């Protein structure tokens, strides 16, 4: 079941499974990852390394870096990534948790 989301999706698309913090999640294939996560009810994408404050996407155009998530060990902007099957996404959890 999808958690309640503040966002509504206008169109239904074929979905693929990704892993979010190890849990399977079905997202529309080829969708913008940040948009798809928001629509799936994910509001907090990460905790900041400075104060541990929660953050989510802010600009959706690759400028603010608040949508950072870890994909295959590299911290990247979710709003600049497309959903593909099997993507492993991790939400950075503040100081001292990234897995370099």
């Amino acid at each position, binding site marked *: 079941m999808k958690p309640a989301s503040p966002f509504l999706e206008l169109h239904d698309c074929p979905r693929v499974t990704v892993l979010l913090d190890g849990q399977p999640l079905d997202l529309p294939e080829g969708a913008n990852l940040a948009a798809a996560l928001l629509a799936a009810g994910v509001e907090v994408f990460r905790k900041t*390394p*400075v104060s541990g404050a929660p953050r989510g996407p802010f600009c959706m155009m690759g400028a603010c870096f608040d949508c950072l998530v870890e994909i295959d060990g*590299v*911290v990247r902007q979710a709003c600049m990534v497309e959903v593909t099957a099997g993507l492993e996404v991790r939400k950075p959890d503040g*100081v*001292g948790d*990234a897995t*370099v």
Partner: protein
Amino acid sequence: MDTDYAIIGGGVVGLSVAWGLLRRGRTVTVLDGDDGSFRASRGNFGLVWVQSKGMKQPRYARWSQQSAAIWADFANELGDATGQNVPLEQKGGYDLHFSEETLRATVEQYEALKAKLDGDYPFDVLGHNALRKEEPHIGPKVVGAILHHQDGHANPLKLLQALAADVRRMGARVLVGKTVTDVSKPDAFRIDCADGTTLGADRVILSAGLGAAQLGPKMGFKAPIRPQRGQVLITEKLPKLINRPSLIARQVDEGGIQIGATNEEVGLDDRVTQPGLSGLAAEAIAAYPALAKAQLVRSWGALRVLSPDGLPIYQQSTEMPGAFLVTCHSGITLAAAHARFLPDWLEGTVDAPDLEVFSEARFAVS
């Protein structure tokens, strides 16, 4: 007179000296440039470093040791006075080696220096496996390292900020956005700035970094200093990956990995270049392979303030007695010495350190 001491240049060198003089009750006026001027003090690597310094001049090794030894105490005093912590870690630092030959050759040099320093030069040589115990992320290409126990690293920007705050707290006048164009000594000193500001002073300290190359000769100094560019990289903030600093990389207190630095003779050009950034990245990954996945978020180029032999210059002008040239390459390492010991030399007290080897007499007249 407007002030006992006029200090030209408000980088880490000028501010450290200002701080020491203020602590002795002197009145001090600092004149500093504008937001865009070359400032090594905000572009450096932050090492409080002893090893490899003064290989040819043990007095320089000793001077660095003396500063490193009192750095923690100095940082604490600054921190208490300003309420702002100046992060410092002194649990040793590495010289990493990728070949047995260079490691052996360096150890030989260190042994020679150690003898000249009466054995006070504490270092250990770590082979790859011993090093790996200390630094689990070290890469297979690193054959070993020299661990020098007097080395450490600080947050140089916090140091600069604390000095800027504390000299003001102690009553210094700090005039920013000033470019000193001339210093004369009709009677007492007269200092002229580009914007028309003039200042009278009993004594003048020229600690203007690269700016001293122009002003120095007007005050009777040789001031043979040149810029040398260093490009520096910093990554996103990461969990603990590097325990002790090395000349290749260190993890700063905020979490980013700082990587540096190039040595380039390119004049007053402080840009970064793709070949420079790539070369540094490759070296850092050779040392710590896990860094390959780290994001570089920022880079900069900064200009070192170098004398021909890389040693500091401490010189009183013979043409204009009361004017002093104070400049050095390792201004972070030497900040504590400049704040605590150099004022004795400036004031000519009985405790004055012997800094003769750092005078301009060592530079041949050309």
